[in-house]
């Protein structure tokens, strides 16, 4: 994901399309919620949400975590360099999905973030991710 320097409450259009909501910010950690919705389903036989929804939410929440880090300041733009996602178990149909992300290191050029996707228990996650973001990437359309 690439983000602008808008406030944490401002969702990019795709975040809005998925229905991501900011729930809490505590120190370097931020938690978001995705309410269960029919258009997010990956397998209509089971109603389990698609892995891609989890990917998009982990990516979005990871970008937000960087803005919770004490060394981030408004105006720094960022772009995801890479993200690795491990899927531990299918999400339970009908239940909301939460993602807690933590930015644990910011250097001059790169920020490192890990995140957990879970439903009722963060210690029994649906998926986890590790991502790195380039900072100070261009944030205006190139001519």
């Amino acid at each position: 994901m690439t983000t602008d320097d808008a406030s944490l409450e401002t969702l990019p259009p795709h975040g809005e399309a998925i229905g991501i909501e900011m729930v809490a910010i505590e120190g370097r950690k931020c938690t978001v919620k995705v309410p269960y919705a029919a258009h997010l389903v990956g397998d209509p036989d089971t109603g389990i949400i698609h892995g891609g929804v989890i990917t998009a939410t982990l990516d979005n929440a990871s970008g937000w975590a960087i803005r919770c880090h004490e060394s981030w300041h408004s105006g720094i733009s960022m772009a995801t360099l890479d993200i690795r996602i491990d899927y531990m178990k299918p999400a339970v149909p009908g239940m909301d999905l939460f993602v807690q992300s933590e930015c644990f290191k910011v250097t001059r050029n790169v920020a490192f973030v890990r995140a957990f996707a879970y439903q009722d228990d963060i210690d029994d996650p649906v998926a986890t991710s590790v991502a790195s973001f380039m900072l100070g990437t261009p944030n205006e359309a190139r001519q």
Partner: protein
Amino acid sequence: MRILQQLRDQDRAGDMQALVDHIPYARFLGIQADIKGSEVTMILPFKDSLIGNVNLPALHGGAIGAFLEITSVVQLLFNTSCERLPKTIDISIDYLRSGKPVDTFGRATVTRQGRRVANVRAELWQDDRSKPVAASHGHFLLAPS
């Protein structure tokens, strides 16, 4: 997934568009499948709700990640006659260029297929195939759980 069985019964095991249309999230993204011979090309037509950065503008990394994953799974289903949808074990995504607000294309290669696990690489591009916007490699579970 019942659709896989239905398609096989109707001798349409290669009808990847019918499969994609059956997945609500893929339909929501607007994904299309184009098959020429043994090659599957996936298409993510541009629409505003795929945007992640309104300033650039650029596609959302999550939409790109989801498209890579779907491209990988569809190629896997096209190559094999799995009875159920492969489960993603892990996927590692490299973002190579910012995704412009235009149509995106994807192709995947099954690099190794074992009895239980398949390794799949996928690549996305926009107007120039030699300038990929993102690439991924993932592991997918094939065996029934």
